[in-house]
Each structure stands twice: as structure tokens, then as C-alpha cells.
């Protein structure tokens, strides 16, 4: 079935009563003065919004000086916003070669126009403008569309570490008052189990909190950029925007240093601002200098400190998601257990067929929860 922009565009034009020229003009970057219309569209589509959406939209789509135009595209007819899609410009590094790409996020269409083809059209229009598009995560409604418009390339896999027994008991079994009796001894067991997985900090390394990344993190990121690897480059500007300035969630960043040299970092969150009855915390993103023979030890020490910090902060259970085999030994050494039933899909599309083929080798991607914008 031919799904090209040129073939399908006349039909969406007919569905919306627009000429092809009007249709092409209608899809464009948003301007800041349209924020109230954007928020109105988002209110009509999003349910269970627990965050301050105006603050979030301003931060995510209108705050980064690194982008010349707002990375929020709207479909507007007579100044009325009918659909929209958020973007996150990133630098993708494929076999050591850097290239621009975008993550697409938050695609939405006004509910009364749902199913007319506008969502598909916005995707097709973005494919024409941006040569590489990435999507992490899907829901029941979007999965089928994403599978057909992008290539489902790999799944992030999950590891979990229970901290408080109630987080598991309440989710798995309706035990009622019995849970209150069983929980304290089980908590002691879980604490003893964590002690078994303690790892020592390698000689010459210090572990400490980081308030904000400095440019040395890019040098660390570049050590991951090699043949056989596909990765979104971490820069100080990107990481600080994403994790330090994020209005929706507070993150903790822990660094491993040899002297002043950054050897690795881990980013965690325990978001209690959203509905989170199990107090589920996440190991969100990490890097540890891979050229060093002790990189697993550095990552293990960082993960241990991350777990310790989240435990102190009151986490009930900690999860860690990744699509790479590199980190799994350190994750399991920190006491996490693999959860085969849980997956988060990752999709990619590149306009160049050879590059598209290269990007769909799932085993070469390094993807963490930091590649997913849901907090």
C-alpha cells in the first residue's frame, strides 16, 4: 500500500476542506503567542493532567535557545489549531557520525477530527521536513499507527528492585490487613538482600551529587560514539534542560569522578507529584566511561548510590529500563531483577533508505528512560 505524502495529501485536504497548498501551509512551527490555543487543544485531548501544563509547554517547546524555531508543530486552519506534534531536536550519532534528528512527542488532534487522517498527515509532513524521526513509547491508541508509519526497532527492557514490601504486596495480591503484618519482616528481608548487592567504590573514584552538568559530559558521551553504536549525544545544554530545568519533576544527578574528570553519571527520579501510590522511582539515564576496564565497577557504584538515595527518599520500588546489553551486568549486580513481561517500544524512521536500514538494527542502540519524556 502506497503511503507516500504525495499520494495521500489530496485526501486529507478533501476531508478537511482545504486545497493541497492550504494544507501544506497549515502545518508549521508554532509561535509563542499561540500558547493559549495550544493549551486549549491539549486540554481537549489529554486526560489526568497532574502538572502545570502551561509551565510544561513553555519549558519543553519554547525555552531552548539551541533551536531557532519552536520545536512544536501545529496544524492550523484559519488560525484555529486543529492538531499538533511536539519535537525534541537531538544529535544522533551513528557509527561515530553525528547527524540531526528529532524525537516526536505528544502528537494530538482535536477530538471532533479524530480518525479523519490528520494525525497521519502531520507525521507525513514532519517526515518530509526532518530526515530522522524517533519515537519512544506507545499506547493502545497509537501503537498500530506507529508500527505502520515508523519501524518498531527495539524494546526497552525492565529491571526492578523492590524496596518496600507494600509496593509489591498491594500491587500483586489483595491481602488486606495481612499485608500490614507481613510487610515489616519482608522489608527487613529486602534490606538484607540489598546489603548483599552493595558494591564498593573503585579506588581513585569519588561519588558525589551534581547540581548541573558541565561541558565535560559531552566528552564522556563521545566515548560511546563508535562503530556499531547508535546513540543520542548527551551535552550539558541538553541534559541540564531535560533534567535540571524540568518543571514537571525533580531529578537527582550523581557523578563519579577521578580527580576532576567525570567518569560516569546516573540520573534518578522519585516523582511524587504525579499519582504514584507505589512510590515507584526510576533510574532514568546513565553513562560510565566504557574505555575504562572498570567501567562496570563505576556504573555499579553509581547504581548503588542511586538506589541508596532513592531508598532514603522513600521509594517503594525502583525500576530501570534500557535497550542495550552493555549495562545489564551492572544493573543485576545492583540487585535488580529482570522483568521479561514489561517492555517499552522504540520506533525510528529515516528518509534515506540506507540510513533507515542501518538505524533499524535494534541491538546497536543505547537507549535509556531518558529517551522517553513521560515522567
Amino acid at each position, binding site marked *: *500500500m502506497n503511503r507516500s505524502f504525495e499520494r495521500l495529501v489530496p485526501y486529507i485536504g478533501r*476531508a478537511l476542506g482545504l486545497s493541497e497548498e492550504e494544507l501544506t501551509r497549515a502545518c508549521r512551527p508554532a509561535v509563542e503567542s499561540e500558547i493559549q490555543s495550544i493549551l486549549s487543544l491539549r486540554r481537549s485531548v489529554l486526560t489526568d493532567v497532574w502538572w502545570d501544563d502551561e509551565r510544561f509547554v513553555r519549558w519543553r517547546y519554547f525555552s531552548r535557545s539551541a533551536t531557532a524555531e519552536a520545536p512544536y508543530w501545529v496544524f492550523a486552519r484559519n488560525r484555529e489549531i486543529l492538531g499538533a506534534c511536539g519535537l525534541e531536536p537531538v544529535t544522533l550519532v551513528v557509527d561515530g557520525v553525528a547527524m540531526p534528528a528529532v524525537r516526536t512527542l505528544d502528537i494530538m488532534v482535536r477530538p471532533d477530527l479524530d480518525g479523519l487522517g490528520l494525525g*497521519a498527515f502531520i507525521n507525513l509532513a514532519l517526515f518530509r521536513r526532518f530526515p530522522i524521526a524517533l519515537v519512544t513509547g506507545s499506547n493502545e491508541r497509537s501503537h498500530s499507527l506507529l508500527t505502520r508509519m515508523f519501524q518498531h526497532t527495539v524494546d526497552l527492557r525492565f529491571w526492578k528492585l523492590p524496596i518496600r514490601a507494600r509496593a509489591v504486596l498491594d500491587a500483586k495480591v489483595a491481602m488486606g490487613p495481612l499485608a500490614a503484618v507481613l510487610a515489616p519482616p519482608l522489608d527487613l528481608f529486602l534490606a538484607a538482600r540489598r546489603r548483599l548487592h552493595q558494591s564498593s567504590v573503585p579506588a581513585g573514584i569519588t561519588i558525589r551529587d551534581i547540581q548541573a552538568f558541565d561541558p565535560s559530559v559531552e566528552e564522556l558521551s563521545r566515548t560511546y560514539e563508535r562503530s556499531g553504536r547508535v546513540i543520542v549525544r548527551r551535552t550539558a545544554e541538553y541534559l541540564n534542560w531535560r533534567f535540571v530545568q524540568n518543571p514537571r519533576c525533580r531529578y537527582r544527578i550523581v557523578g563519579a569522578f577521578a580527580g576532576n574528570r567525570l567518569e560516569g553519571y546516573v540520573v534518578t527520579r522519585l516523582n511524587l507529584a504525579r499519582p504514584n501510590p507505589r512510590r515507584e522511582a526510576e533510574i532514568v539515564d546513565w553513562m560510565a566511561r566504557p574505555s575504562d576496564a572498570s567501567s562496570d565497577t563505576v556504573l555499579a557504584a553509581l547504581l548503588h548510590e542511586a538506589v541508596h538515595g532513592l531508598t532514603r527518599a522513600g521509594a517503594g520500588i525502583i525500576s530501570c529500563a534500557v535497550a542495550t546489553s552493555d549495562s545489564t551486568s551492572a544493573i543485576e549486580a545492583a540487585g535488580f531483577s529482570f522483568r521479561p513481561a514489561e517492555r517499552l517500544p522504540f520506533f525510528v524512521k529515516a528518509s534515506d533508505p540506507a540510513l533507515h536500514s542501518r538505524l533499524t538494527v535494534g541491538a546497536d542502540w543505547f537507549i535509556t528512560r531518558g529517551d522517553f519524556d513521560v515522567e
Partner: protein
Amino acid sequence: MTRGNAAPGDTVTPAEVLDWLAEMFEEPKGRITPATPRSEIPAWDSLGQLLLMSALDQQFGIRLTQGELSSLASVQDILDILTRHQRLIEK
């Protein structure tokens, strides 16, 4: 029937339409019946609607109006459109 080989103006039977829709929406043959609602066909989404519009135009010469588009809620609605446009024959 492979509708891709058909010329605009062809007539089809309901069974052929069901097979054609199953192929378009990536469903096993036989799963789609006239009573199947759109909500039970995952690929009849935003992209599926565009592909359906395109296919009806290219293969039957039928250009859906905005009203027809908005009212498509089940496979029977597609059969009704083909009937109205005299493309459906009972066999």
C-alpha cells in the same frame, strides 16, 4: 480479488470487499464482517482512513464527501457506500 489490479468502475461482491478490507487493514481473512465496528480494527485509524479514501478513489472512482467520511463507523458503512455508488453486486 486483488483490488490493485482492478480498474475504476469495477463491481465487487461483499465477500471480495471483506477480503480487500482485511488485506488493507492487515487483519486475517474472515475476521472482518459487515458488523465489525471501526473500533475493533486497529489499523483503521488515522492512516487507515487515508488509505481507505485513497483506495476507494483509485480503485472504484469513489470520492468520499466530508459527511460520508465522518459517518464511517463500521464495515457495513463501507459496503453501503459501495452500494450507493453501484459498485457492489450480490453474488
